[in-house]
């Protein structure tokens, strides 16, 4: 999977035609074979753009930054990125006519060590769902697979699970990197950061980590697209996907196979209902 040349050409063309002000893509990090995002405003810089299986970061995160707000933006999206973009469009955070989207039929990205990422192995929509231009051969939808870690955890006992998650919350250093790197966390001021939220208040205890991470994951339930930006940003390498994948699994199994960001105009599982939703857990 190498679309570097095509993306360079498209970006150069877009700048030449005056269709965009900013282009968000990837470039080589310059010190190893990993890639970092790049925000280009100068047409001459388009030659640095690359796209390979090392293009991991979800670029839709940059749509909430100062550099791209109210500007015409061109950007590259993979399958999962396009789903978050879809949600941002639905939630009126970005305007479709200000974007030029280069969709990619993604064959999966790899982590630092060169192994295919877990979310790519379980990916069910590898092709971008919203795009102006498509690169690569469409692969079509695949079957939804329940996350392997969740399946494994579900077999464990209550106390065992409690111990495992306690470790996660204890190792959290409350830097909020997960939230800031999440493309769908765009609130101007997060509810758990409010000064009135005396429970959290930025302290670093397992209690405040529990509070912040649980609230965060529940506010993203039915919206999370599993791009793993949060895990990439986490300095403690916490398996944050567990919280999201658990919610995703429950939502998929109980709410008519709902998957976030797949259909245009879908606001997420919690913004609609069905009379047939499970009721047996309620007295």
């Amino acid at each position, binding site marked *: 999977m190498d679309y570097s040349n095509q993306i360079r050409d498209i970006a150069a063309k877009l700048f030449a035609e005056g269709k965009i002000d900013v282009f968000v893509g990837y470039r080589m990090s310059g010190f190893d074979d990993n890639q970092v995002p790049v925000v280009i405003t100068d047409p001459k810089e388009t030659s640095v753009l690359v796209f390979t299986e090392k293009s991991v970061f979800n670029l839709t995160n940059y749509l909430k930054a100062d550099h791209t707000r109210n500007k015409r933006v061109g950007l590259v999206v993979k399958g999962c990125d396009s789903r978050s973009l879809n949600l941002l469009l639905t939630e009126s955070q970005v305007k479709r006519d200000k974007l030029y989207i280069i969709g990619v039929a993604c064959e999966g990205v790899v982590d630092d060590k060169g192994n295919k990422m877990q979310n790519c192995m379980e990916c069910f929509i590898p092709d971008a769902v919203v795009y102006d231009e498509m690169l690569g051969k469409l692969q079509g939808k695949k079957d939804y697979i329940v996350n392997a870690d969740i399946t494994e955890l579900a077999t464990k006992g209550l106390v065992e699970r409690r111990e495992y998650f306690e470790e996660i919350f204890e190792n959290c250093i409350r830097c909020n990197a997960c939230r800031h790197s999440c493309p769908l966390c765009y609130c101007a001021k997060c509810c758990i950061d*409010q*000064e*009135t939220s*005396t429970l959290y208040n930025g302290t670093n205890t397992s209690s405040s980590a529990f509070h912040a991470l649980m609230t965060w994951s529940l506010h993203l339930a039915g919206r999370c697209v599993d791009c793993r930006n949060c895990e990439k940003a986490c300095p403690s390498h916490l398996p944050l996907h567990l919280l999201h994948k658990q919610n995703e699994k429950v939502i998929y199994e109980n709410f008519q196979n709902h998957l976030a960001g797949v259909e245009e105009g879908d606001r997420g599982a919690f913004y609609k209902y069905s009379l047939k939703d499970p009721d047996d857990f309620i007295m």
Partner: protein
Amino acid sequence: MEALLVPSLAKVDRIIQETPDVRTYRLKFKDEALMEKFTWEPGQFVEFSLLGSGECTFCISSSATRKGYFDCSIKKAGVVTADIHLNIEEGDEVGIRGPYGNWFPVEEIKGRNLLFVGGGIGLAPLRSLIQYCIDHRTDYKDFTILYGARTSADLCYKEEIEEWKKNTSIKVVLTIDKAEDNWKENVGVVPKILEEVVKPEIANTKVITCGPPIMIKYTLQSLDRLGFSPEHVITTLEMKMQCGLGKCGRCNIGSTYICKDGPVFTYAQLKALPDEF
């Protein structure tokens, strides 16, 4: 470190509603020995905490020459100040740490004419100095107080201003931004009144100014125009602070810590700071 951050308890003796959103809290330490010992210079600040809500930085708005109490004037602006306005009643206890920061150069300005330029809640730190200077009246020459606010209702310390007006050795000039019925004083923004009405004498005069950032900006410009040299203009800065001890790094501008090296700066010192305002 943590021991330095523990506040002492003080009792709210009196609450004075200055304007719709400014209240003055008259405080006394619960520990009387501490109240005896507690002294400060005009321009210094304290960390005022409403336990359970948070800590805020306020300047002491009364002078140490008036013993037995100290005042903090608090404007309702953020979460903690709103809580303070909502929850604190006379007799309640709050936490106080301090005093911190530097102060107005009371020795250096001796024997000079003083011009105070204040806007809105910015009169609070000036009030501390004005009270100090009134109590040491013989050390200083002419007194002029120029004070402006958006409306007449927003003028703080109304009773005290009346007292100052009665004092023949003090010239008080009041102004509001827009004309109102029954308003007999000046109308116009502070810098305009400064140039058109006050017309201060430049020689041997020190200007002490405090107010909202926008007022400070234009006042400094008009003082420049009037011909004041930057060394003779003194102002106090506003910056978010949390520890007051020069540790938490919040008030850091360049290599200056506002909480230790400030909050009182001359205009000349301000000009040397990196342009962060």
